[in-house]
C-alpha cells in the first residue's frame, strides 16, 4: 500500500464528479482483481506442490494411514508322549485385541468390555498401561474367548470400534494337571522376554512358552506368525481386508514327540497322597529318556490359556504348598540313605572296603565320635553287618565307619567325580544342580578353619549335612549304577542325538563290584527285613534304596530310588514325599515308586501305537 496513489484519488476540498468516482473505482477494481488472481495463483501453486510434486509421498502416507498389519498367530506344534498320545494340541479359539489408537478410547473400550471379559479395575489399569507403552501395536486382551462372548461383542460392534476379534489356534492340554510341571504353559510374551536375543523376532502380544517343554522348545513349537493387512478408518475401526497387499500365512510350529509316558503321569497323579508334597521321576537308564517327571502339588496348564486372571495367578503364587515349584527338578533335598550306594561305590573304587567287609564296631544304635554319639535309625542296633547287610538294613553306624575309613578328602573328591555338584543337563528350564562340598577349602571358607571337625565326614556318609540333591540327579546316578554304561543325560525329547549324549564322569567300578551293590540293593526290596520289602513286586526284581532324610522343615522326607528289573534295568525311579510321618516314612515313597515301575513294565509288554494291534490284544 503506497501513498502516492491515494493522493490522486481524493481531492479534498473539491466535489467529485461521477466520472471521478468511476475512474477511482475502475482503478481500485483492477487492484482488487489483481489481488484476487494473485491469491488464486498462490493457492494453485500450493496445490501443485502437494498434488503434483508430492503425490507419490502423500499417496504412500495415505496408504500407511489406513493400513494396519495384523499378526496372524501360528498354530503351535502338537506334543505327543512316547506312545503318540496327545499332551498338547490346538483348538480353534477366539482372541480379542485392541487396535492402535488413542489411549483414552482404549480405556473406555476396556471398561465397556469388562463385564464380558471379567476384567477387574486392576487388570484394566494394567492393560491400559501396556497399551500406552506400546503405541502402534495391537494389545492382546484375551486369547480364549467363549463363543457366546464373541457373539455378544459382535452384536454391539459400534461400541467396540477398536476391538479386533480374530480366530486363532488356542492351546489345550488334554491330560491337564498331571503333566503341568513338565509341559509348562503358554502365555503372552512379557516385556522382559522381548529383550531376550532368542526372541528378538517376537512381537508384543505373541503367545510364548513360559515353562517346561513349552519354553524349552519354544523356537521349534512356536512357528512363524503371518501377517494380514487390513484397512482401518480414522478411529481405528477395521473396515476390511486391504486388497493391494495379500496376507502372508503363518507357518505352523513343528510337532514334538517326548519320551514321556502319559499313563505314568496319570498314575502318579492318582496315587500321590493329596495332603503331601513331593515328586516322582522315572528314566530309561539305557537311553536317558525321561519317562515320568511329576511334582505335587501341581497345576492345570489349561488355566493359563487366554491369560490367567490375577486372582488365579496370585492364588498359585502365594499358595504355601508352592504348586508352581517343580519338586522333581528345581528342589534340592538331603538324599538321606539313598546316598549309601554312592558312598559304597566310592569305598569300593578306592579299595577301602568290599561288599563283605565288616567294620570294627557292630551297630548298637549309635557310634561315639569325639564326645557325641552319632545315632543309627534303629535304636536297638543292627549288630554286626557287612556292607551288603548295611545297605539292606540301611545301618548308619556301618556307614559312619566306612566314611571314616575312606577319609574326608577321598570322600569329597570321589563324590565330586560322580558329578554330584552340578546339573544333569536335562532339556528343561529351571533345573537346580546338586550341591556337594568341592573340597576342604569350602568348609574353611564357610565355617572358618577351626569352625568344623572331621565329624562332617560322618554326616556326609549317610546323605546328611552338606549334600543336597534333586530327584533327577539321584535317578541319573542310579541309572549309571544300573547299567554300568557311561551315564546318560536325562532328556524329554525323543532324539538319537540326545540319547547318545553322555556325561563326562564315570562310576568306575568293575562289573562284579557294581553287581555286588545291585545285589545288596535287591535285598533291600526282595529279602525279608529289607527296608522296602513290603513293596516288592511279584513279577519283577526291583532293586533300590530307601531314605529318610532329616531336614530343618519338619518331619523327615521319605525317599526311594531304585530300578527294575535288576538283571536288565529298563526303568529307574526316584520318589520323594516331603515331611512324612516319622513312624513309617519309608512306606510313603516306596509304594509310589513300585507302582510306577509295575505299571511301566506291565505296559511295556503290550504292543505300542498301532490301533489294530491294540484291538487284537486279548
Amino acid at each position, binding site marked *: *500500500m*503506497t*501513498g502516492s*496513489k*491515494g*493522493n490522486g*484519488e*481524493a481531492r*479534498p476540498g473539491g*466535489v*467529485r464528479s*461521477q466520472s471521478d*468516482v*468511476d475512474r*477511482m*473505482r*475502475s482503478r*481500485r*477494481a483492477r487492484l*482488487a*482483481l489483481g*489481488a*484476487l*488472481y494473485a*491469491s*488464486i495463483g*498462490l*493457492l*494453485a501453486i*500450493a*496445490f*501443485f506442490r*502437494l*498434488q*503434483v510434486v*508430492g*503425490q507419490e*509421498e*502423500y*499417496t504412500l*502416507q*495415505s496408504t500407511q*494411514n*489406513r493400513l494396519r498389519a495384523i499378526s496372524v498367530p501360528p498354530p503351535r506344534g502338537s506334543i505327543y508322549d512316547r506312545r503318540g498320545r496327545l499332551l498338547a494340541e490346538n483348538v480353534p479359539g477366539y482372541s480379542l485385541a485392541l487396535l492402535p489408537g488413542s489411549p483414552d478410547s482404549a480405556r473406555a473400550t476396556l471398561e465397556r468390555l469388562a463385564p464380558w471379559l471379567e476384567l477387574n479395575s486392576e487388570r484394566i489399569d494394567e492393560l491400559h498401561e501396556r497399551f500406552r507403552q506400546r503405541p502402534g501395536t495391537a494389545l492382546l486382551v484375551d486369547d480364549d474367548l467363549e463363543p457366546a462372548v464373541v457373539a455378544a461383542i459382535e452384536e454391539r460392534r459400534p461400541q467396540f*470400534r477398536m476391538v479386533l476379534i480374530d480366530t486363532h489356534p488356542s492351546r489345550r492340554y488334554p491330560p491337564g494337571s498331571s503333566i503341568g510341571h513338565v509341559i509348562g504353559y503358554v502365555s503372552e510374551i512379557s516385556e522382559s522376554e522381548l529383550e531376550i536375543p532368542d526372541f528378538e523376532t517376537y512381537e508384543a502380544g505373541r503367545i510364548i512358552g513360559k515353562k517346561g517343554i513349552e519354553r524349552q522348545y519354544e523356537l521349534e513349537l512356536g512357528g512363524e506368525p503371518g501377517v494380514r493387512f487390513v*484397512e*482401518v*478408518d*480414522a*478411529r481405528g*475401526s477395521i*473396515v*476390511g481386508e486391504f486388497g493391494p497387499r495379500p496376507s502372508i500365512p503363518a507357518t505352523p510350529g513343528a510337532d514334538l514327540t517326548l519320551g514321556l509316558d502319559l499313563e505314568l503321569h496319570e498314575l502318579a497323579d492318582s496315587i500321590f497322597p493329596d495332603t503331601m508334597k513331593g515328586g516322582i521321576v522315572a528314566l530309561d537308564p539305557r537311553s536317558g529318556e525321561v519317562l515320568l517327571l511329576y511334582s505335587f502339588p501341581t497345576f492345570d496348564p489349561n488355566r493359563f490359556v487366554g491369560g490367567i486372571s490375577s486372582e488365579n495367578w496370585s492364588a498359585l503364587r502365594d499358595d504355601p504348598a508352592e504348586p508352581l515349584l517343580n519338586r522333581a527338578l528345581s528342589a534340592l533335598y538331603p538324599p538321606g540313605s539313598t546316598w549309601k550306594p554312592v558312598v559304597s561305590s566310592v569305598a569300593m573304587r578306592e579299595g577301602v572296603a568290599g561288599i563283605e567287609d565288616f567294620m570294627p564296631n557292630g551297630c548298637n544304635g549309635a557310634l561315639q565320635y569325639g564326645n557325641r554319639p552319632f545315632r543309627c535309625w534303629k535304636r536297638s542296633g543292627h549288630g554286626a553287618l557287612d556292607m551288603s547287610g548295611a545297605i539292606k538294613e540301611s545301618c548308619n553306624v556301618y556307614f559312619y565307619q566306612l566314611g571314616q575309613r575312606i577319609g574326608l578328602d577321598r570322600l569329597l573328591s570321589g563324590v565330586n567325580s560322580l558329578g554330584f555338584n552340578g546339573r544333569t543337563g536335562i532339556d528343561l528350564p529351571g533345573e537346580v544342580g546338586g550341591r556337594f562340598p568341592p573340597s576342604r577349602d569350602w568348609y574353611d571358607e564357610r565355617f572358618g578353619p577351626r569352625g568344623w571337625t572331621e565329624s562332617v565326614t560322618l554326616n556326609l556318609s549317610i546323605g546328611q549335612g552338606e549334600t543336597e540333591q534333586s530327584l533327577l540327579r539321584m535317578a541319573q546316578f542310579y541309572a549309571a549304577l544300573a547299567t554300568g554304561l557311561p551315564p546318560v543325560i536325562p532328556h524329554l525329547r525323543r532324539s538319537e542325538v540326545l540319547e547318545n549324549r553322555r556325561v563326562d564322569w564315570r562310576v568306575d567300578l568293575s562289573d562284579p563290584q557294581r553287581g555286588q551293590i545291585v545285589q545288596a540293593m535287591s535285598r533291600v526290596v526282595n529279602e525279608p527285613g529289607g527296608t522296602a520289602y513290603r513293596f516288592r513286586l511279584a513279577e519283577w526284581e526291583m532293586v533300590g534304596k530307601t531314605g529318610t532324610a532329616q531336614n530343618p522343615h519338619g518331619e523327615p522326607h521319605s525317599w526311594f530310588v531304585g530300578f527294575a528289573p535288576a538283571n536288565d534295568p529298563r526303568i529307574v525311579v526316584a520318589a520323594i514325599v516331603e515331611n512324612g510321618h516319622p513312624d513309617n516314612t519309608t512306606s510313603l515313597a516306596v509304594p509310589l515308586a513300585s507302582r510306577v515301575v509295575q505299571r511301566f513294565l506291565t505296559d511295556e509288554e503290550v504292543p505300542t501305537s498301532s490301533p489294530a494291534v491294540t484291538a487284537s490284544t486279548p
Partner: protein
Amino acid sequence: MNVRKEGIAVRLGDPLFVAAALTLALFGIAMIYSAGLTEIRTPVANAWKRQAVWLALSVIAFAFASRVPLRWLEWATPWIYGLSILLLIAVLVVGSGPGTRSWLKFAGFSFQPAELAKLATILMLARSLGGREEPEVRLLRLWRPMVIAFAPFLLVLAQPDLGSAVTFGVILICALFWAGVPLFTIFMLVSPGVSLLLGWSATIWGVWFVFVIILLYLRRPWMLEAVAVGVGNLAAGALAAPLWNSLAPYQQNRLLVFLNPGIDPRGAGWHLIQSQVAIGSGGWLGRGFGEGPQKRLSFLPEQHNDFIFSVVGEELGFVGVLVVLLGFGWLLQRTVKIAAGSSQNFGSILTFALFGAWFTHLVINVGMTVGLMPVTGLPLPFISYGGTFLLMTFIGVALISRTAQEH
C-alpha cells in the same frame, strides 16, 4: 417470447453471475454427498439432503430478495443491523455449539447469528459510506464505520470465533476501500492490527513501528491522527502478549500448528496433516468422485464442512481444484465488475464488501486445507455444508443481482 426472456434477464441482473453461484452450490451438494460416503456410516451421510433443502430455501429467498428495491433495503438496514447485534448478544447468553457459542436454536431450527451479522454489517457500512458525497480522508472522522464493524467484531470474538471476527475487519477495509477512502488512511487504520500480529517479537515490531513513524512523518496527516495511530500501534504491540494469553488453548494451538504442523501431529496438527495427505494423494486427476480413501475412512475432520475442499483435492485432483478455483475466480471477478459498473453507491459498496467477505472466506478456507492459512473454521462459500451460511450467501447473491439490475 423475447420480451419475456429479457424480463427474466433484467430481473436476474446478471444471469451468468447467478448461474455461476447456483452451479457452485450444486457442486457443493455433490461434494457434501461424497463427504458422506464413508466406510462406517455417520450422520454426514444425510447432510447433502439437508443442504439440498437449504438450497431450495435459498433460491426462494433469492427470488424474494432480488425483487426488493435497494432504496427499501437501505431504509431497513439499521433495523436489520440492530437485530443482528441483538442476536449476537443473545447467542452469547443462550447459545450453544461445539466449544464455542455460535448457534441459536429455536423450534428445532439452528441458526448462526454471525452469518446474518456479516451481511447486516455490510449493509450498514454500505449505507453509512454510500450516503456521503465525498470520500472521507480523515481517519478520525471514520469513527462511524469503525464502530459499525467493531461491535459485531467484538461480539463474535467473544464466542469465540476468530475466523468470523477477522471477516468483519476485512469487510470494513473493503467497504472503505470501495468508498474511496485514501489508501494511506486505510493504512493508518490497519497499522495497529499489524502491530498486534507482530507484537510477539519486539525486534520485528520495532522495525514496523519505525516504518509507521517515518511514513507518518512523510505524509504529515493531522497531528491528532498521527498521535492516535502512534499510540494505537504502541498499545497493540504491548497488548499482543496478554491478548495471546487470553486466547483459548485450542485457538493458540491452531495458530502454533499453522506455523509448524509437526509440533502436535496427533492433536491440532492432525487435521492439517490429514488434509495435506488427502490433497497430496489426489495427484493430477484425483481418486475419483466418492472414492477418496482419506475421506472414506474419516481421516478428514469436518469433511463436509470446513475441510470440504480437501475432499475436492483428494477426489478430483489438481485439475479439479484448478477448475473450482477458476470458477470462484470468475464469480468474484464478476462481482467486482458489477460493483464497478454500478452508479448506485449503496449497492456498489455492498457488492464490493460481499466480494471482500467471500474472497476472504475462499482464501482462508482453501489456504487452510494446504497449510497456507491457520485452521480457523471459516466455511467455503457455496460449497461447505451449513444452512444459515448458504442462505446468507444467496441473499448476498440476490443483493448483487439487484445491484446489477438497478444499474
